[in-house]
């Protein structure tokens, strides 16, 4: 292609405390093309796109739009320049109509600009939807539309801003196949009209079906950009994971015992579909899969945080029914949640209260908490887990991510569960603490706990697990032993290129 570029990103750098999220990345896009942006979770795709759409400032680098250098200081600036980003969490106002959402802040007015000209707004919005071939009423409330239709409204809104570049962040993750088709049709027709579409996705079929070129990021760097028709799925996956297993995963040999927990045909809504597996004493099972593949949902089902539609859970060969996390805890099942800040911790409270939430139930006499025993126990745990905190009164907010996570682990150690589920246990944690947490997990397995660990980081899954399960779109796609698993195999199973059962 020798057309002039629509968009040029030059040497973009962005770091967060402790992480270099985007390292000297350059990327070009043409008018009238669909550019797929792929990479593992945490590869820097979203950060890069947030810089482009004005949500994050870059540390350094240049952005050119149609050859002109532009300064994108805020999302509204990006909007004015014709760059729109459609996020996974949509930003429409559910209680307002389609037309009012599209024209929010730019309503047609009369009476000295004080009253909204509803009739005119409705016609203009209708024209817009007609032009895009969308067939829902503009007077419908957003809350009455499907997720797919809401995305279409977002796109219509972007078009009404004369957007030249539209970024879609995993637009199909919440859509059915039929809905995705409608979205793709719309994307193709926008391409015809000369709009540049940058499209973040994990789904290989879609990428190969839809995109003109594929850009691959890994560890904050751009690994390569090629026309889609010169690539194979194999090649893209290779580029995505191509890193060596450099991190150190301490793993001790543990005698694996009898089956402790068995899941049979777990099904819940659309997110989890007939998932069956077992966990043995002393075993660490890794649950891999892309974000949204249903890993977290499985974890929550096993912990009684969500309810099963069908399927059964067996503990020691006896069927159990988990109506609440409380029941799961009583039966000896623990869950370290994916999002520790919102679901795992009381950020404003002390190390003592965070670590002892579950302990309180054990160390009480006539309903009074035996604080002295609690304190002794916590001191031991802090030492044993080498939690770095000045004292037990320290607020959790002031600890590092790694130490916060260790406090949560301490909480579970207190009740010594038989099954411990760890959902992304090292997300956002520095490398040193990661290794500590990995060795801790290994140690717990050594004590006979059965552990189920989900992770988006393949090296972690490969390094820690005895056995690896891979999910895609709610179903279990494959199972590998520690010996046979490789990054390539897992990635292929997770993107649906490989099905082993």
């Amino acid at each position, binding site marked *: 292609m020798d057309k002039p570029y629509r968009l040029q990103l030059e040497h973009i750098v962005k770091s967060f405390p402790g992480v270099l999220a985007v390292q000297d990345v350059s990327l070009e896009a043409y008018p009238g093309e669909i550019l797929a942006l792929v990479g593992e979770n945490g590869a820097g795709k979203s950060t890069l796109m947030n810089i482009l759409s004005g949500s994050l400032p870059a540390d350094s680098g240049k952005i050119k739009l149609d050859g002109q250098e532009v300064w994108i200081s805020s*999302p509204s600036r990006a909007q004015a320049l014709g760059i729109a980003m459609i996020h996974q969490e949509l930003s429409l106002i559910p209680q307002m109509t389609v037309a009012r959402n599209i024209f*929010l*802040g730019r309503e047609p007015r009369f009476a000295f600009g004080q009253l909204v000209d*509803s009739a005119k707004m409705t016609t203009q919005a209708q024209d817009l939807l007609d032009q895009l071939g969308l067939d829902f009423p503009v007077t419908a409330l957003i809350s009455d539309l499907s997720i797919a239709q809401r995305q279409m409204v977002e796109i219509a809104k972007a078009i009404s801003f004369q957007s030249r570049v539209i970024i879609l962040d995993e637009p199909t993750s919440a859509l059915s196949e039929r809905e995705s088709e409608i979205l793709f049709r719309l994307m193709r027709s926008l391409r015809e009209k000369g709009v540049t579409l940058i499209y973040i996705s994990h789904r290989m079929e879609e990428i190969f079906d839809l995109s003109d070129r594929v850009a691959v990021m890994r560890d904050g760097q751009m690994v390569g950009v090629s026309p889609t028709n010169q690539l194979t799925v194999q090649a893209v996956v290779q580029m995505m994971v191509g890193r060596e297993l450099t991190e150190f995963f301490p793993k001790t040999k543990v005698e694996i015992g009898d089956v402790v927990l068995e899941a049979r045909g777990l099904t819940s809504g659309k997110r989890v579909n007939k998932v069956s597996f077992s966990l043995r004493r002393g075993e660490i099972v890794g649950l891999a899969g892309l974000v949204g593949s249903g890993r977290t949902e499985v974890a929550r089902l096993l912990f009684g945080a969500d309810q099963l539609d069908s399927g059964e859970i067996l503990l020691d060969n006896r069927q159990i029914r988990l109506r609440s996390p409380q029941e799961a805890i009583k039966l000896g099942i623990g869950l370290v949640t994916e999002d520790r800040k919102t679901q795992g911790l009381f950020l404003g409270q002390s190390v003592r209260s965070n670590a002892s939430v579950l302990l309180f139930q054990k160390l009480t006499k006539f309903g009074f908490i035996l604080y002295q025993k609690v304190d002794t126990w916590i001191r031991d745990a802090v030492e044993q887990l080498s939690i770095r905190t000045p004292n037990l009164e320290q607020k959790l907010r002031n600890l590092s991510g790694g130490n916060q996570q260790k406090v949560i682990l301490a909480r579970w150690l207190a009740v010594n569960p038989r099954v411990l589920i760890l959902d992304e246990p090292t997300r956002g944690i520095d490398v040193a603490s990661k290794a500590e947490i990995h060795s801790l997990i290994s140690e717990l397995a050594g004590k006979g706990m059965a552990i189920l660990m989900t992770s988006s980081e393949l090296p972690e899954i490969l390094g820690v697990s005895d056995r690896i399960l891979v999910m895609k779109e709610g179903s279990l796609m494959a199972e590998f032993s520690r010996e046979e698993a490789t990054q390539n195999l897992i990635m292929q199973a997770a993107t649906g290129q490989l099905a082993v059962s």
Partner: protein
Amino acid sequence: MKRSILNFLRSNSGFIILLAVGLPLTILSPEFLSGSNLLTVALQVSMIAITAIGMTFTLITGGVDLSVGSVAALTGALAAGLATRNELGTYPSMFLALLAAAAVGGLNAALIVWGRIPPFVATLATMAAMRGLTLVYTNGKPISGLDEQFTFWASNLGKIPVPIFVLLVVALVGYVILHRSLIGNYIFAVGGNEETSRLAGISSTKVKFTVYIISALSAGITGLLLTARLWSAQPNSGTGLELDGIAAAVLGGASLSGGAGSVVGAVTGTFIIGILANGLNLLEVPSYNQQVIKGLVFIVAVVLDYILKRRLKTE
């Protein structure tokens, strides 16, 4: 159930509850539907409804205004005081008193927007402070000696009490502002999603000042009407007005989490409360028991609304 039926029930829940409350009363008490009784209800309801309309504005933004009762008392006292003590004339006194009410609304908004104090706390503080100010200004005693120009506002025009006309005007103005004007659109937008609104270039500061001033002004109007009706400004008038206002707005479909509410709903909600109270009086239910029944009806209405909303979401 069909989605359209659910939607109909949800968006007209106020009227349905009104019927559900009114029909049995009509059957049980022959006086209920008489013209004079309905006018009595309308008179009682109109004053609260005006405050409920203002309250709806704050609720839609996800806020609340607890200071309405105190503002009503302060406005009434100021108007009566300026008219009798300072002899400024009825209308200038009323105007100045409403100006003071608007200032309190502005203070509420300033505390919320610039002081970053949650609306509940900010307006709780002004509720206490303004009640205190009223007591200081009146010395804790009623201000009487109002002229006919003042008391006209609670008299009857023909057979119909004047406050009903005032309510009609306030409702009409409120309707145009909330459902037809630009700022009304932005009130819903800010309540629905503040971040999206910000990105659309909407100033939430302006929106919040508008709603708290509107709320305070409508409370002020209620205060003037209460004063006119009692022929004097009572330092303790308007106590509990915030509860009635919130209950009415919520019964009429306003959401405490913001984003939803309407002027028609606020008026309907007040009528539900008023008719219920009136009907229970006619049936000679003791007033203590009335409180219990009112509470139960409120719970049923809110739970029903919640269930309908959930059904709509899952369908």
